[in-house]
């Protein structure tokens, strides 16, 4: 019964055109960034950086490097946007449209309905993150020879990996990216359980994320970084570090699990108390 009802939620979610907005925009953004990277002086700049540090540019200017470079920025900016867009819609849009009232005339509990919706949102988040990884790689294949992975974030990260190690780290990073997408979706989902418009739920979730991001990046707050949600949301970045700090990874994962459970419990509590009227 639960799986059947989850299937209904997935039909509803993936039957809407706006659900695909994230996929489409990611694809367009990836193509644009990769083309600019390939056919401008940007790739030469990256090559210089590699050569200065004693690495062979031909081994590392690869689809993996290009996709990693592209997806870094998309994961920072666009992934929260589309995660929160879908998360904010899951409850609030149905409440606004009136279909929620149609469902809640049925003998299904509010908590169960929320759980179904949250799981559907989590599935969307995982698919979006993994597809981001797959398309990034596929788009780069015709333009770069296969090779190692070079991950670089100014002042934060400089790492090179041979092709096989680079591929699994890239795959694992996208798997962890789905935890980020799910958490942002869960945050917007919580706001969507309040009696507000879906757009307001999305904006509130994004505001929360951006505020965390701003606070985390104020130099005087550097010591407080682990207290901010965005610090833990970026755990996928850890997969490009060498060696991987597993304790930090475990800490972030368990905290994100806690955040998700808290967002869901708060959402369920608020939603459970609401009067649903036309």
């Amino acid at each position, binding site marked *: 019964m639960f799986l059947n009802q989850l299937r209904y939620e997935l039909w509803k979610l993936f039957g809407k055109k706006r659900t695909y907005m994230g996929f489409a925009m990611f694809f367009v953004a990836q193509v644009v960034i990769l083309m600019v990277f390939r056919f401008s002086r940007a790739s030469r700049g990256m090559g210089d950086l590699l050569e200065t540090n004693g690495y062979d540019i031909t081994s590392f200017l690869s689809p993996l490097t290009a996709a990693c470079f592209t997806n870094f920025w998309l994961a920072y900016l666009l992934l929260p946007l589309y995660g929160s867009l879908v998360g904010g819609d899951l409850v609030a849009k149905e409440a606004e449209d009136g*279909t929620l009232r*149609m469902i809640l005339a049925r003998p299904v509990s509010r908590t169960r309905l929320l759980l179904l919706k949250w799981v559907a949102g989590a599935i969307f988040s995982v698919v979006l993150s993994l597809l981001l990884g797959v398309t990034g790689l596929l788009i780069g294949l015709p333009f770069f020879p296969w090779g190692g992975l070079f991950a670089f974030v100014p002042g934060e990260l400089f790492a090179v990996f041979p092709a096989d190690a680079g591929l699994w780290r890239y795959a694992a990073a996208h798997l962890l990216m789905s935890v980020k997408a799910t958490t942002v979706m869960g945050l917007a989902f919580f706001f969507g359980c309040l009696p507000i418009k879906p757009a307001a739920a999305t904006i509130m979730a994004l505001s929360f994320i951006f505020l965390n991001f701003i606070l985390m990046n104020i130099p005087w707050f550097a010591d407080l970084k682990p207290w901010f949600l965005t610090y833990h949301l970026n755990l996928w970045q850890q997969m490009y570090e060498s060696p991987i700090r597993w304790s930090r990874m475990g800490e972030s994962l368990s905290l994100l699990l806690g955040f998700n459970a808290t967002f869901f419990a708060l959402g369920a509590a608020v939603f459970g108390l609401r009067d649903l009227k036309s």
Partner: protein
Amino acid sequence: MIRLKDLTKRFGQRLAVDSLTLEVRRGDVFGLLGHNGAGKSTTIGMLLGQVWPSSGEAWIGNHEVSRDRSKALARVGAIFEAPAFYDYLSGWRNVEILAGYSSPVTRQRLAEVFEWVGLSGREHQVVRTYSHGMRARLALAQALVPDPELLILDEPTNGLDPEGIHEMRATIRRLHSELGLTLLLSSHLLTEVEQLCNRIAVLNRGRKVFEGGLEEVQRGQDWVFLETDAFDLVVTRLMAEGLVVGSRDGRRIALASGVPVSGVVRRLVELGHPVHAIGRETLTLEEFYLSLMKEAPCS
């Protein structure tokens, strides 16, 4: 089938439903009548567990809705004013989804219901292309698929054109006669309730001002119409003699308990008052409703 006990709902300072007690019996077509804002939809919301009562109880069968919602609603279907659907999905898929939250749905059952509501052949079109009338039939289909015993209809004809209204009323009669459903119908349309229901409750500002059979309404309590010269003088004399206890409109009198119409006629003739016409009143629901509203006017 439905029992409401002292059901009350406050939204902040506003009292939306005030100690409502009523009973809908199995097999009834029960009309919940009242002006806009009288508390009909809030009452239905509480009955479906969508609105939390401030106090009181709502029972469907042997289950109290707040405590045992899933069991209470297991054999209940509901149709709302302006039913909402997933417009980007087909009618078939909409019904499959909505009814699927009650119990698993078979293709055969879906096909049967689409046939019954007259949407066969259109079920695989996206709902965005449906007319108002088709959407109303789709609403009925999603309510019927889980095989309910009780159907709750909240202003089911609102937004329909005259043809659609006629069709919906005919369908409501079929639901009762062919499927044997108990129906709770909320409406502010007096003619609709008069045509469809056997029992009614009238709400005014959240309070029940009448509950009973439609026959009771039509009997018109003990009002008698009287056409005579000098109506007011006649009433004064009859009241002084204890034959009449009230009057209204300059042409209606309320007889005292046990006084027959023939007794009033005899006395009027004895007093020398001409009687042009006299008879027991058969009130229309509209007249009855308006008289109730006069007794407890809206602010």
